[in-house]
């Protein structure tokens, strides 16, 4: 029945919302190879750019002559990023871009450039804090900087609590720097039409990048058109126009030709972002009952030349004991700068917190699951975690499989179990949706948003189709252009709430306008009207078809705008999740094999079950990746990122992930919380859960992620 209240359908009454909906709008294009990504843009006359990057981690450019490049056949433009006397601060930093008729000619152009560097001493080791302190290395003419974290990091009385504690555990933990490794690198295709810049940009931020082009190019923001129909992964690294994007636009302007500039794989990994490392010396204590009483931690790591490390705001992770102290030192390294990486700070904090706590449980002789249960009262979502732990334990068959640490089967291959908890916000970002209802009953939605692979197009269609009671195929969804109403960047799991709220609001208001016409025309009470199966109903009586109803709108149809977020219950924030891992460790080779992961995720109201589940599954492999294999390896001698390619930067393959079990925690109480984003939270727990499982299997902690065979064997040798 039509009520003039903005709300979701009542629990259990939705037609499409919350069901499994395949990607009706763009899935076929992807499967057919017809989806166009930035690197696929190739309008007539397109020039192709290649980049000269620094082979040194730290150097001054002493001389640079790009003139010979301009003479190379096919070369049309040369763009200098960094000239003579510039201090280059990491390997891969961009020096020159060359655009030519063919990529090989651009490469010929690069080879013709004459450049000389004065190589300076570098520092790339983020694990060795003492070494960084002792190294007499300068950066920007000053001694290598170490930054201490500021602010009030203390709570309670840690010393006294450690004195009083029954069990105290001390250990070192951490995780290495990793990259985003989007399968489509960063880049764009730029073309000018008169004074208009048309950029096909691989971006998570369609509505927010025009100004980043306009400023440096000295043009009006209104003259910039940003287009991104498809993007091959971003994971937090693609929010900006970036200097290479601006160079692309500049070279296009200069030559009067379209230019395509995509980073090559190696450069991508060196310059386009990474996740900071975080090492920690942790002391953690509990009382005789296993209640955590104190946390004391000292952190270090790097985010590149910025000299930061993880933020301590979520340390210790999930648990908030009465006494805590935490300090951090960021190390300046001559490495590329960090960017937001799926759930910034959380995976690292989860990894060092929940491994340390699991070790404390082992010291106290309490099994991991009971220990976690005893401490749920110092988490933000005790009831949710408790319920999720029960579900997860059942799906994992925890009780039957559990053995105390290191006390599993004999033989060289050992199995183990581990678990971890996580939390995330996932509130809606700001966005506006324009909904058009045409006189023939078809509907269009417009949002300056982007589909970073999550299936947001389909989710928008689900919400509109649900609201109007029409099939998804009667809704056309438009995103991917900054000329549509503004929508926030896709980061922080904010998009699903960000777009579904405004789409629902605009659609409901448009629906009411249609139903007002129907009520007047057919002399029925508005309050009795409802839409379903492309028909308008009064109670169980069919009044007219949806198409007939829309014909009452007149030849122009209607347009309605919906905004968000609003405080009307369509969206909210804060979720918790529990994950359990089962691994098999070959103690002779040090190889860890995933047997099974169970992920239980609190999600609020599910818009599209199929794609929501994909977010969790995708998170699990990304988690398995940083837990077991992927890391940036810097060569201390040359200062180079020596595994910056897809052969030596190890990602899990399809046979490496084991069995993945995903369930949402969604009692009615969750549904009524409205839509909450969950693209990030499930990527947080795998590091700790898998590390705990490995410790359970082999009886010792492998302190640093990823748990490579070498680290596993080293840990066992040390034991």
């Amino acid at each position, binding site marked *: 029945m039509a009520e003039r209240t903005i709300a979701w359908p009542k629990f259990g009454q939705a037609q499409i919302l919350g069901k499994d909906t395949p990607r009706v709008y763009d899935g076929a294009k992807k499967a057919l190879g017809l989806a166009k990504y930035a690197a*696929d843009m190739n309008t007539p006359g397109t020039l192709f750019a290649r980049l000269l990057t620094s082979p040194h981690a730290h150097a001054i450019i002493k001389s640079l002559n790009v003139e010979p490049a301009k003479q190379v056949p096919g070369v049309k433009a040369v763009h200098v990023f960094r000239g003579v006397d510039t201090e280059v601060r990491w390997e891969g930093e961009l020096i020159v871009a060359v655009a030519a008729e063919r990529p090989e000619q651009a490469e010929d152009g690069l080879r013709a450039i004459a450049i000389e560097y004065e190589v300076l001493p570098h520092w790339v080791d983020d694990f060795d804090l003492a070494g960084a302190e002792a190294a007499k290395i300068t950066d920007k003419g000053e001694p290598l900087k170490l930054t201490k974290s500021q602010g009030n990091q203390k709570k309670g009385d840690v010393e006294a609590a450690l004195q009083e504690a029954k069990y105290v555990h001390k250990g070192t933990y951490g995780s290495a720097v990793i990259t985003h490794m989007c399968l489509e690198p960063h880049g764009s295709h730029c073309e000018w039409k008169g004074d208009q810049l048309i950029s096909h940009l691989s971006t998570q931020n369609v509505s927010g990048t025009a100004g980043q082009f306009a400023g440096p190019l000295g043009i009006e923001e209104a003259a910039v058109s940003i287009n991104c129909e498809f993007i091959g992964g971003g994971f937090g690294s693609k929010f900006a126009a970036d200097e290479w994007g601006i160079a692309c636009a500049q070279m296009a302007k200069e030559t009067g030709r379209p230019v395509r500039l995509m980073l090559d*794989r190696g450069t991508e990994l060196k310059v386009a972002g990474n996740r900071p490392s975080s090492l920690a010396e942790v002391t953690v204590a509990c009382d005789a009952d296993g209640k955590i009483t104190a946390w004391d931690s000292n952190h270090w790591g790097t985010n590149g030349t910025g000299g930061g490390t993880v933020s301590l705001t979520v340390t210790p992770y999930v648990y908030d004991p009465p006494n805590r102290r935490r300090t951090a030192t960021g190390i300046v390294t001559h490495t590329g700068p960090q960017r937001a990486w799926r759930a910034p700070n959380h995976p690292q904090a989860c990894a060092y917190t929940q491994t340390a706590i699991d070790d404390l449980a082992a010291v106290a002789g309490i099994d991991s699951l009971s220990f976690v249960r005893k401490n749920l009262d110092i988490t933000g979502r005790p009831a949710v975690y408790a319920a999720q732990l029960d579900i997860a334990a059942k799906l994992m068959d925890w009780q039957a499989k559990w053995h105390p640490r290191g006390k599993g089967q004999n033989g060289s291959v050992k199995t183990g179990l581990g678990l971890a908890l996580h939390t995330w916000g996932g509130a809606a970002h700001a966005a506006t949706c324009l909904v058009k209802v045409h006189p023939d009953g078809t509907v269009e939605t417009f949002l300056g948003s982007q589909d970073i692979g999550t299936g947001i197009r389909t989710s928008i269609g689900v919400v509109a189709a649900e609201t109007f009671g029409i099939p998804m195929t009667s809704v056309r969804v438009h995103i991917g252009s900054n000329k549509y109403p503004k929508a926030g960047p896709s980061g922080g799991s904010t998009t699903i709430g960000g777009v579904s709220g405004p789409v629902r609001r605009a659609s409901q208001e448009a629906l009411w306008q249609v139903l007002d016409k129907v009520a007047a025309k057919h002399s029925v009470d508005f309050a009795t009207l409802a839409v379903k199966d492309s028909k308008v109903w009064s109670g169980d009586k069919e009044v007219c078809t949806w198409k007939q109803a829309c014909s009452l709108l007149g030849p122009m149809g209607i347009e309605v705008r919906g905004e968000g977020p609003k405080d009307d219950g369509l969206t909210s924030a804060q979720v918790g999740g529990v994950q359990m891992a089962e691994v098999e460790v070959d103690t002779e080779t040090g190889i860890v094999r995933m047997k099974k992961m169970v992920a239980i995720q609190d999600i609020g109201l599910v818009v599209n079950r199929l794609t929501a589940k994909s977010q969790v*599954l*995708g998170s699990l492999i990304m988690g398995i990746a940083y837990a077991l294999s992927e890391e940036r390896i810097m060569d201390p001698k040359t200062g180079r990122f020596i595994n910056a390619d*897809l052969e030596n930067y190890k990602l899990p393959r*399809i046979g490496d992930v084991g069995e993945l079990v995903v369930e949402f925690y969604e009692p009615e109480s969750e549904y009524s919380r409205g839509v909450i984003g969950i693209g990030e939270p499930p990527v947080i727990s795998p590091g700790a859960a898998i590390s705990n499982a490995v410790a359970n299997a082999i009886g010792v902690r492998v302190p640093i992620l990823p748990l490579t065979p070498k680290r596993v064997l080293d840990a066992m040798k040390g034991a």
Partner: protein
Amino acid sequence: MAKKRIVSTTINGDVTEFLCEPRQTLLEVLRDTLHLTGTKEGCGNGNCGSCTISMNGRPVTSCLVLAVEAEGADLRTIEGVARGSALDEVQQAFLEEAALQCGICTPGFIMQTEALLAENPDPTEEEVRFYLAGNLCRCTGYDKIVRAVLSAARKRRMTAEAAK
């Protein structure tokens, strides 16, 4: 600069001639010269499988094939998989089972799956994981890809049965 060569091939059933430099890869020619951009580039060195196509019935990573090597070859790319505008069983299964997210790895996975099913119409889960190990995906969790491949195989076998 080396002289350009004319290469004659059959691509997706059509006789196709193209001009290329000896140093150009087949991937580059497909994408930039012939505008068959469904074949993607993830790494350029044979490690991600995004550029997988079929060459004389065998799956190859086209970034590791020189365009001149395609002389006389029968090539099939993702654009040639569908029957007209209708998705084939593999494409349909990838769509229905949500085995694609950002979609950049999808053409490569589909081409490798086509090769698998041509060789082995009834693969086990283990065989699927083994055969697709050269293809990387950063988004999907792989799980749904395995389900999609198995379901496509089932459907294709059923269609073949029915046709007997």
